[in-house]
Protein backbone atom coordinates (compact mmCIF):
# COMPACT_ATOMS: atom_id res chain seq x y z
CA UNK A 1 0.00 0.00 0.00
CA UNK A 2 1.33 3.43 -0.94
CA UNK A 3 0.56 6.56 1.06
CA UNK A 4 1.01 10.27 0.36
CA UNK A 5 1.28 12.52 3.40
CA UNK A 6 1.30 16.29 3.07
CA UNK A 7 0.56 19.38 5.11
CA UNK A 8 2.23 22.51 6.45
CA UNK A 9 5.74 22.64 7.90
CA UNK A 10 6.19 21.51 11.51
CA UNK A 11 2.72 19.99 11.74
CA UNK A 12 3.73 16.44 12.62
CA UNK A 13 3.98 14.94 9.14
CA UNK A 14 7.30 13.17 9.71
CA UNK A 15 6.28 11.54 12.97
CA UNK A 16 2.98 10.35 11.51
CA UNK A 17 4.85 9.11 8.41
CA UNK A 18 7.32 7.16 10.59
CA UNK A 19 4.44 5.50 12.44
CA UNK A 20 2.66 4.67 9.18
CA UNK A 21 5.78 3.24 7.51
CA UNK A 22 6.64 1.19 10.55
CA UNK A 23 3.09 -0.25 10.76
CA UNK A 24 3.20 -1.10 7.06
CA UNK A 25 6.55 -2.88 7.50
CA UNK A 26 4.81 -5.50 9.63
CA UNK A 27 8.15 -6.87 10.90
CA UNK A 28 9.65 -6.86 7.36
CA UNK A 29 12.45 -4.54 6.20
CA UNK A 30 11.91 -0.89 7.09
CA UNK A 31 13.81 1.72 5.08
CA UNK A 32 14.24 5.43 5.52
CA UNK A 33 15.15 7.17 2.25
CA UNK A 34 17.20 10.14 3.41
CA UNK A 35 16.75 12.82 0.77
CA UNK A 36 18.65 15.74 2.20
CA UNK A 37 22.04 16.42 0.64
CA UNK A 38 24.00 18.41 3.25
CA UNK A 39 25.74 21.55 2.02
CA UNK A 40 26.76 23.20 5.26
CA UNK A 41 26.84 22.90 9.05
CA UNK A 42 23.17 23.86 9.41
CA UNK A 43 22.14 21.00 7.11
CA UNK A 44 24.38 18.54 8.96
CA UNK A 45 22.90 19.61 12.31
CA UNK A 46 19.37 19.08 10.97
CA UNK A 47 20.29 15.64 9.67
CA UNK A 48 21.77 14.72 13.04
CA UNK A 49 18.53 15.78 14.75
CA UNK A 50 16.51 13.68 12.30
CA UNK A 51 18.78 10.66 12.82
CA UNK A 52 18.29 10.99 16.61
CA UNK A 53 14.51 11.23 16.17
CA UNK A 54 14.52 7.97 14.23
CA UNK A 55 16.64 6.09 16.75
CA UNK A 56 14.98 2.95 18.01
CA UNK A 57 12.45 2.78 15.17
CA UNK A 58 14.45 0.13 13.30
CA UNK A 59 14.94 2.04 10.09
CA UNK A 60 17.73 1.17 7.68
CA UNK A 61 18.81 4.47 6.16
CA UNK A 62 19.38 4.75 2.42
CA UNK A 63 21.01 8.01 1.34
CA UNK A 64 19.25 8.90 -1.89
CA UNK A 65 18.58 12.57 -2.57
CA UNK A 66 18.20 12.13 -6.33
CA UNK A 67 17.30 9.51 -8.97
CA UNK A 68 14.78 7.67 -6.81
CA UNK A 69 14.02 5.13 -9.55
CA UNK A 70 17.64 3.91 -9.30
CA UNK A 71 16.62 2.15 -6.06
CA UNK A 72 14.69 -0.33 -8.19
CA UNK A 73 16.87 -3.37 -8.78
CA UNK A 74 19.54 -2.45 -6.23
CA UNK A 75 20.90 -5.54 -4.50
CA UNK A 76 20.84 -4.05 -1.02
CA UNK A 77 17.25 -2.84 -1.37
CA UNK A 78 14.37 -5.26 -0.85
CA UNK A 79 11.33 -3.87 -2.64
CA UNK A 80 9.06 -6.03 -0.48
CA UNK A 81 9.92 -3.73 2.42
CA UNK A 82 8.32 -0.59 3.74
CA UNK A 83 9.91 2.67 2.57
CA UNK A 84 9.60 6.13 4.04
CA UNK A 85 10.57 8.84 1.55
CA UNK A 86 10.86 12.14 3.39
CA UNK A 87 10.56 14.25 1.33
CA UNK A 88 9.32 14.70 -2.22
CA UNK A 89 10.05 18.40 -1.67
CA UNK A 90 13.76 17.75 -1.10
CA UNK A 91 14.15 15.35 -4.03
CA UNK A 92 12.61 17.90 -6.39
CA UNK A 93 14.81 20.65 -4.99
CA UNK A 94 17.96 18.52 -5.35
CA UNK A 95 17.17 17.72 -8.95
CA UNK A 96 15.79 21.10 -10.07
CA UNK A 97 18.51 23.17 -8.45
CA UNK A 98 21.64 20.95 -8.41
CA UNK A 99 24.54 22.07 -6.26
CA UNK A 100 28.13 20.80 -6.30
CA UNK A 101 30.62 21.20 -3.51
CA UNK A 102 33.73 23.07 -4.72
CA UNK A 103 36.50 23.19 -2.14
CA UNK A 104 33.90 22.60 0.54
CA UNK A 105 31.65 25.39 -0.66
CA UNK A 106 28.28 24.79 -2.38
CA UNK A 107 28.11 25.99 -5.97
CA UNK A 108 24.79 26.24 -7.83
CA UNK A 109 24.99 24.46 -11.18
CA UNK A 110 21.94 26.09 -12.80
CA UNK A 111 18.29 25.07 -13.00
CA UNK A 112 17.55 21.69 -14.56
CA UNK A 113 14.50 22.33 -16.74
CA UNK A 114 13.81 18.63 -17.25
CA UNK A 115 13.79 17.79 -13.55
CA UNK A 116 10.06 18.34 -12.82
CA UNK A 117 8.85 15.78 -15.36
CA UNK A 118 11.66 13.33 -14.58
CA UNK A 119 11.22 13.48 -10.79
CA UNK A 120 7.45 12.99 -11.08
CA UNK A 121 7.93 9.94 -13.33
CA UNK A 122 10.65 8.42 -11.14
CA UNK A 123 8.61 8.78 -7.94
CA UNK A 124 5.55 7.20 -9.56
CA UNK A 125 7.74 4.42 -11.05
CA UNK A 126 9.36 3.68 -7.69
CA UNK A 127 5.97 3.58 -5.97
CA UNK A 128 4.54 1.14 -8.48
CA UNK A 129 7.64 -1.10 -8.49
CA UNK A 130 7.49 -1.40 -4.70
CA UNK A 131 3.76 -1.98 -4.71
CA UNK A 132 4.11 -4.65 -7.39
CA UNK A 133 6.77 -6.40 -5.29
CA UNK A 134 4.39 -6.40 -2.33
CA UNK A 135 6.02 -3.55 -0.39
CA UNK A 136 4.86 -0.07 0.46
CA UNK A 137 6.04 3.51 0.19
CA UNK A 138 5.08 6.45 2.37
CA UNK A 139 5.79 9.67 0.48
CA UNK A 140 6.03 12.88 2.50
CA UNK A 141 5.49 16.21 0.74
CA UNK A 142 4.90 19.80 1.81
CA UNK A 143 1.85 21.96 1.28
CA UNK A 144 3.43 25.24 0.09
CA UNK A 145 0.47 26.52 -1.89
CA UNK A 146 -1.27 29.02 0.36
CA UNK A 147 0.91 32.12 0.02
CA UNK A 148 -0.23 35.38 -1.46
CA UNK A 149 3.13 36.94 -2.24
CA UNK A 150 4.61 36.46 -5.68
CA UNK A 151 7.81 34.42 -5.82
CA UNK A 152 10.64 34.60 -8.34
CA UNK A 153 9.86 32.76 -11.62
CA UNK A 154 12.10 29.81 -10.69
CA UNK A 155 10.52 29.42 -7.22
CA UNK A 156 7.08 29.63 -8.80
CA UNK A 157 8.12 26.90 -11.27
CA UNK A 158 9.27 24.83 -8.30
CA UNK A 159 5.91 25.29 -6.50
CA UNK A 160 4.05 24.23 -9.62
CA UNK A 161 6.36 21.23 -10.17
CA UNK A 162 5.93 20.07 -6.57
CA UNK A 163 2.14 20.37 -6.86
CA UNK A 164 2.22 18.32 -10.05
CA UNK A 165 4.35 15.63 -8.40
CA UNK A 166 1.96 15.61 -5.41
CA UNK A 167 -1.05 15.27 -7.68
CA UNK A 168 0.55 12.47 -9.73
CA UNK A 169 1.38 10.61 -6.51
CA UNK A 170 -2.08 11.27 -5.03
CA UNK A 171 -3.63 9.74 -8.15
CA UNK A 172 -1.71 6.46 -7.75
CA UNK A 173 -1.42 6.20 -3.96
CA UNK A 174 -3.93 4.11 -2.04
CA UNK A 175 -4.17 6.66 0.71
CA UNK A 176 -3.72 10.46 0.83
CA UNK A 177 -3.50 12.11 4.24
CA UNK A 178 -3.14 15.74 5.27
CA UNK A 179 -1.53 16.43 8.64
CA UNK A 180 -2.43 19.68 10.41
CA UNK A 181 -1.34 20.33 14.02
CA UNK A 182 -0.58 16.63 14.28
CA UNK A 183 -4.20 15.80 13.37
CA UNK A 184 -4.80 13.73 10.25
CA UNK A 185 -7.42 14.23 7.60
CA UNK A 186 -8.06 11.50 5.06
CA UNK A 187 -8.45 12.65 1.46
CA UNK A 188 -8.29 9.23 -0.13
Amino acid at each position, binding site marked *: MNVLISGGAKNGKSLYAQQTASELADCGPLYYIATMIPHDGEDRARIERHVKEREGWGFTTIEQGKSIASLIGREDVDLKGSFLLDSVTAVLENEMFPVALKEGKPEFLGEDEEAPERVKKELVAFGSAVKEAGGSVVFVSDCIYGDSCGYSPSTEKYRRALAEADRALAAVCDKVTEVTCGITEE*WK
Partner: protein
Amino acid sequence: MILVFGGAYQGKTEYAVKEFGLSAVCDLSEGGEPDFTKEIITGLDAFASRLSAAGEDPAEYFRSRRGLWEGKVLVITDTTQGVVPVDREVRAAREASGRLMMYLAGEAEQVHRVFCGIGKRIK
Protein backbone atom coordinates in the same frame (compact mmCIF):
# COMPACT_ATOMS: atom_id res chain seq x y z
CA MET B 1 -23.63 28.63 -6.34
CA ILE B 2 -20.83 26.19 -5.66
CA LEU B 3 -17.51 27.48 -4.34
CA VAL B 4 -14.32 25.50 -4.99
CA PHE B 5 -11.19 26.60 -3.16
CA GLY B 6 -7.73 25.29 -2.33
CA GLY B 7 -4.04 26.17 -2.64
CA ALA B 8 -2.24 27.10 -5.85
CA TYR B 9 -1.76 24.40 -8.52
CA GLN B 10 -3.97 21.89 -6.72
CA GLY B 11 -6.16 21.14 -9.76
CA LYS B 12 -9.22 23.10 -8.59
CA THR B 13 -10.58 24.03 -12.04
CA GLU B 14 -9.92 20.52 -13.36
CA TYR B 15 -11.83 19.16 -10.37
CA ALA B 16 -14.75 21.54 -10.98
CA VAL B 17 -14.94 20.53 -14.65
CA LYS B 18 -14.93 16.79 -13.81
CA GLU B 19 -17.02 16.83 -10.65
CA PHE B 20 -19.85 18.94 -12.05
CA GLY B 21 -19.61 17.86 -15.70
CA LEU B 22 -19.14 21.41 -16.97
CA SER B 23 -16.88 22.80 -19.67
CA ALA B 24 -17.43 26.55 -20.18
CA VAL B 25 -14.69 28.21 -18.13
CA CYS B 26 -13.94 31.90 -17.71
CA ASP B 27 -10.38 32.24 -16.37
CA LEU B 28 -9.58 35.54 -14.67
CA SER B 29 -6.08 34.67 -13.50
CA GLU B 30 -4.35 36.66 -16.26
CA GLY B 31 -6.82 39.54 -16.45
CA GLY B 32 -10.32 40.47 -17.61
CA GLU B 33 -13.76 40.72 -16.00
CA PRO B 34 -16.04 37.79 -15.11
CA ASP B 35 -18.07 36.48 -18.02
CA PHE B 36 -21.19 35.33 -16.19
CA THR B 37 -22.49 33.47 -19.25
CA LYS B 38 -19.83 30.80 -18.47
CA GLU B 39 -20.57 27.92 -16.04
CA ILE B 40 -17.25 28.04 -14.18
CA ILE B 41 -15.48 31.26 -13.23
CA THR B 42 -11.95 30.66 -12.04
CA GLY B 43 -9.05 32.88 -10.89
CA LEU B 44 -11.24 34.93 -8.55
CA ASP B 45 -8.25 35.59 -6.26
CA ALA B 46 -6.39 37.38 -9.09
CA PHE B 47 -9.54 39.32 -9.98
CA ALA B 48 -10.00 40.30 -6.32
CA SER B 49 -6.37 41.52 -6.28
CA ARG B 50 -6.97 43.73 -9.29
CA LEU B 51 -10.19 45.16 -7.84
CA SER B 52 -8.46 45.83 -4.55
CA ALA B 53 -5.57 47.63 -6.33
CA ALA B 54 -8.17 49.79 -8.10
CA GLY B 55 -9.72 50.69 -4.75
CA GLU B 56 -12.83 48.51 -5.15
CA ASP B 57 -14.16 45.96 -2.65
CA PRO B 58 -14.35 42.51 -4.32
CA ALA B 59 -17.01 41.21 -1.91
CA GLU B 60 -19.16 44.25 -2.73
CA TYR B 61 -18.63 43.62 -6.45
CA PHE B 62 -20.15 40.15 -6.05
CA ARG B 63 -22.83 41.23 -3.58
CA SER B 64 -24.22 43.72 -6.09
CA ARG B 65 -24.20 41.17 -8.94
CA ARG B 66 -25.85 38.34 -7.10
CA GLY B 67 -28.29 37.39 -9.85
CA LEU B 68 -25.40 36.89 -12.27
CA TRP B 69 -23.47 34.22 -10.36
CA GLU B 70 -26.30 32.25 -8.82
CA GLY B 71 -26.11 28.68 -10.10
CA LYS B 72 -22.45 29.04 -11.16
CA VAL B 73 -19.28 27.31 -9.98
CA LEU B 74 -16.79 29.85 -8.62
CA VAL B 75 -13.15 28.85 -8.15
CA ILE B 76 -10.72 30.73 -5.92
CA THR B 77 -7.14 30.08 -4.81
CA ASP B 78 -6.74 30.31 -1.07
CA THR B 79 -3.84 32.73 -0.64
CA THR B 80 -4.41 33.29 3.06
CA GLN B 81 -2.14 30.60 4.54
CA GLY B 82 1.28 32.19 4.24
CA VAL B 83 3.14 34.97 6.00
CA VAL B 84 1.46 38.40 6.09
CA PRO B 85 3.03 40.18 3.10
CA VAL B 86 5.30 43.16 3.79
CA ASP B 87 4.14 44.97 0.67
CA ARG B 88 1.06 47.09 1.42
CA GLU B 89 -0.68 46.37 -1.90
CA VAL B 90 -0.11 42.61 -1.70
CA ARG B 91 -1.33 42.68 1.90
CA ALA B 92 -4.51 44.54 0.89
CA ALA B 93 -5.10 42.16 -2.03
CA ARG B 94 -4.67 39.12 0.20
CA GLU B 95 -7.16 40.49 2.69
CA ALA B 96 -9.64 41.40 -0.05
CA SER B 97 -9.34 37.93 -1.56
CA GLY B 98 -9.80 36.28 1.86
CA ARG B 99 -12.89 38.36 2.60
CA LEU B 100 -14.33 37.55 -0.82
CA MET B 101 -13.74 33.84 -0.20
CA MET B 102 -15.49 34.09 3.15
CA TYR B 103 -18.46 35.97 1.68
CA LEU B 104 -18.84 33.51 -1.20
CA ALA B 105 -18.50 30.49 1.12
CA GLY B 106 -21.28 31.95 3.27
CA GLU B 107 -23.56 32.36 0.25
CA ALA B 108 -22.70 29.04 -1.43
CA GLU B 109 -24.98 26.00 -1.34
CA GLN B 110 -21.87 23.84 -1.54
CA VAL B 111 -18.22 24.48 -0.70
CA HIS B 112 -15.53 22.09 -1.91
CA ARG B 113 -11.88 22.11 -0.92
CA VAL B 114 -9.26 20.65 -3.27
CA PHE B 115 -6.02 19.09 -2.01
CA CYS B 116 -3.50 17.32 -4.31
CA GLY B 117 -6.14 17.13 -7.04
CA ILE B 118 -8.68 15.50 -4.71
CA GLY B 119 -11.83 17.39 -3.79
CA LYS B 120 -13.93 17.18 -0.67
CA ARG B 121 -17.26 18.81 0.03
CA ILE B 122 -17.02 20.67 3.33
CA LYS B 123 -20.37 22.48 3.18
